């Protein structure tokens, strides 16, 4: 248990105070989180669990409004974009106080130095913190920031100028993502001097609605209200993340009122939860897609008719019913219906085994056909049980004369091999990062279709790809919408894959919890949330 010792000690004194008799009058919200964060610096992390743990603490320059994909002001009160779209000038908020934690008392307020520090750590390899705590900045790289950024300059203490190499429509949405959280340069400097830079990522200092108190690995994270917060304030005094990996245990704790908010309930338990008068269940379609990709370079999947036949051979409705168990909706397009440019007029293939078999025979496929069917070894937000889906597909395919061999690998290996184009058919999916359709459609673009690319179908269609490129470089939303809508029609006809489902994200809380808004990105945010 002393893993958390070093981290925990810092907040120990405070925590003991909090947990004493004074806690009686204080309002506490306990969130039964699903796992331990790797650390508290979002830039270093890629998992939702780690982002959730850091989110109460930090702010970004611009932020997604709570419960929406809309970008609004954050630590930057306002910003202007130059006419050519390459220069963005941020006006920073004044009077924002940094948190005080054991071992650090800020002497100054938030300013431009912190913004520069936070981006430079991820951007400049010679930054003193670049290599601290493993020094991997996946999101910064994935969002193409090193390529996009030309310069980042401080004009004065409250003005930052960001210059891009080329105009980029989704840049503001990117800056609202967790990796772009702003951290304290002063704190970093102090820790560097004392020779303990790793502490920076373990005992976090931010500007957000809650400040960090203590963390015990695999057990609990404690935060307390930041009374000086500049934005929508916390309604509770203490926020506790009780780390509970097992969904059954989470449910039990919710029933016992040991926690008031529970994420990721087990689909099998939902019916019972919805009947419980002390519990409220909310849901929202997730910004994601689960798909089954056909490798278009491997015969017989080079034939459009074969791919269409496979679409018809699978009983999608059963998958939604038996695997998603009410937590998913059948997907006919690559993007979820909540995303702009969703083309609702696209018609999905009907389930018709006889027709599918006929089409396969017509296309000259010799039955029985042997294929492999890969399924992820892990649960993903968009797919609760890839193995079970694979078993259902296997049974459905057997009916049309296709023998599917189920294959899986360890997760990293799985994805790598799939990207190399090794499987004939493979399940995977995607979770949107910033609410831009391009963030989904690039998955079927030609530039991602090479060996190692993210386009697992290896499908490269000129009509589709031209529109994809055009839409990415156009600022006009109407024009982009039209292009994306056309692309969805092309995709359905060409059927490079079978889109399986968009998951529906459920969250469960006690009746007394008010003010919570579900984020379309699946993250959790607790300022403005109250308990009775």
């Amino acid at each position, binding site marked *: *248990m*002393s*893993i*958390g*010792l070093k981290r*925990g*000690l810092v907040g*120990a004194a405070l*925590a*003991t105070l909090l*947990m004493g008799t004074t806690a009686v009058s204080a309002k*506490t919200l*306990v969130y039964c989180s699903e796992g331990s964060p*790797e*650390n508290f610096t979002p830039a270093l992390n*890629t*998992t939702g669990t780690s982002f959730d743990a850091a989110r109460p603490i930090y702010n970004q320059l611009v932020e997604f409004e709570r419960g929406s994909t809309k970008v609004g002001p954050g630590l930057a009160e306002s910003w202007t974009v130059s006419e050519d779209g390459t220069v963005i000038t941020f006006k920073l908020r004044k009077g924002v106080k940094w948190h005080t934690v054991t071992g650090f008392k800020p002497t100054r307020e938030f300013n431009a130095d912190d913004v520069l520090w936070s981006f430079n750590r991820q951007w400049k390899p010679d930054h003193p913190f670049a*290599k601290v*705590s*493993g*020094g*991997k900045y*996946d999101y910064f*790289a*994935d969002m193409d920031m090193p390529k996009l950024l030309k310069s980042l300059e401080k004009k004065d203490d409250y003005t930052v100028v960001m210059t891009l190499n080329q105009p980029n429509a989704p840049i503001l949405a990117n800056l609202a993502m967790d990796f772009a959280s702003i951290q304290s340069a002063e704190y970093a400097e102090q820790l560097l001097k004392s020779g303990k830079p*790793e502490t920076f990522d373990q005992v976090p200092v931010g500007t957000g609605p809650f400040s960090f108190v*203590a963390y*015990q*690995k*695999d*057990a*609990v994270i*404690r935060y307390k209200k930041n009374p000086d917060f500049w934005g929508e304030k916390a309604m509770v005094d203490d926020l*506790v993340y*009780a780390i*509970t*990996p*097992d969904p*059954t*245990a989470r449910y*039990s*704790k919710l029933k016992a009122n*040991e*926690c008031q908010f529970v994420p990721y309930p087990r689909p099998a338990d939902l019916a019972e939860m919805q009947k419980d008068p002390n519990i409220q269940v909310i849901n929202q379609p997730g910004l994601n897609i689960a798909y089954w990709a056909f490798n278009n370079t491997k015969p017989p999947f080079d034939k459009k008719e074969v791919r269409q036949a496979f679409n018809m051979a699978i009983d999608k409705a059963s998958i939604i019913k038996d695997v998603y168990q009410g937590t998913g909706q059948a997907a006919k397009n690559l993007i979820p219906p909540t995303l702009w440019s969703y083309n609702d007029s696209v018609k999905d293939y009907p389930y018709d085994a006889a027709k599918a078999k006929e089409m396969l025979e017509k296309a000259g496929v010799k039955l029985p056909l042997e294929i492999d069917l890969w399924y992820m070894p892990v649960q*993903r937000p968009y797919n609760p049980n890839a193995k079970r889906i694979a078993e259902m597909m296997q049974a459905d395919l057997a009916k049309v004369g296709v023998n599917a061999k189920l294959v899986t*690998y*360890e*997760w*990293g*290996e799985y*994805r*790598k091999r799939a*990207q190399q184009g090794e499987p004939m058919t493979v399940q*995977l*999916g*995607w*979770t949107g990062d910033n609410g831009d359709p391009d963030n989904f459609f690039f998955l079927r673009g030609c530039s991602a279709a090479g060996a*190692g690319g*993210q386009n697992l179908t290896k499908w490269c269609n000129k009509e589709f790809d031209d529109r994809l490129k055009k839409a990415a470089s156009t600022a006009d939303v109407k024009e982009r919408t039209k292009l994306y809508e056309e692309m969805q029609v092309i995709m359905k006809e060409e059927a490079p894959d079978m889109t399986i489902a968009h998951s529906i994200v459920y969250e469960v809380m006690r009746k007394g919890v008010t003010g919570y808004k579900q984020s379309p990105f699946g993250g959790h945010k607790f300022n403005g949330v109250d308990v009775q």
Partner: protein
Amino acid sequence: MFKFLLRRAALTLPTFFALMFVTFFAIRLVPGDPVEVRTGERGISPERLAQFRHELGLDRPIWQQFLDYVWNLLHGDFGTSIVTNERVLTEFFALFPATLELSFFAMVFAIGIGIPAGVIAALKRGSIFDQTLMGLSLTGFSMPIFWWGLLLIMLVSERLGLTPVSGRIDLIKYYFEPVTGFMLIDALLSDQKGAFWSALHHLVLPAIVLGTVPLATLARMTRSSMLEVLSEDYVRTARAKGLSPFRVIGLHALRNALIPVVTIVGLQVGSLMAGAVLTETIFSWPGVGKWLIESIGRRDYPALQGGILLISSIVILVNLTVDVLYGSINPRIRHGR
């Protein structure tokens, strides 16, 4: 005696080195890679992958990695976990008390019930009690404990609500810094009312699950060992001499009957560790067993190597101790080997 001890200890050294060698290379044969396994759908570009592998030293020739590893080990350095950036030794000994606490209480449960039950069964050989106990112990002995654990959670925790589903203590009500790592002791030290009971409450079910197989084994062993001793001449003589049954059983029979039982207790440590892996997984018990399984999933080479090496060393040490103890009780063993 000392010579015997020394010889037995010397014999374990090559085992230890071989273990080091085998774990190192076996783990590197596991498909997947600690960097890749952590990335999401996006994956990672080959250049960045190469860079990270370089930083972790994974791109060097494997024999060089091995030599470094051995060199560091000889200096007491078990490496640093790739996932948590925590020293493996620190991490292990932070989690080990949880496993030890669980195993200890499992054994207390097993010994506390198993030995008396076995003795009574032997004394009342053929009685209903004896028959029932033997039937139960055979069942316990045959129990798939992962299922047993689930079943008990289902009945005791879910249906009856008697015990918590997982964890070591009610974290919301009680919060204190670990001092010893043993939750029960820390709870007592913390001065927080009810903390000890909460910890004990959390411990009961996992300890029962982990203790079931040893309990069954012990009951069977004690019974047969006791029966054997009871039929020996000196016991019969003692009985015939009119010594009170209590003295006969308590002083003569039991003491002799327990020698092989003690050995069994000692040798259970290895299987107890294996059982702990399953029990900890089912109850989300934050011990080394669960940690080891997770480390395999995360391809955390240093954690895995260190973990297996440390656990095996503990098993070897315990077995050695049992051997030596047994050897000192029963001198015949020394030459028999």
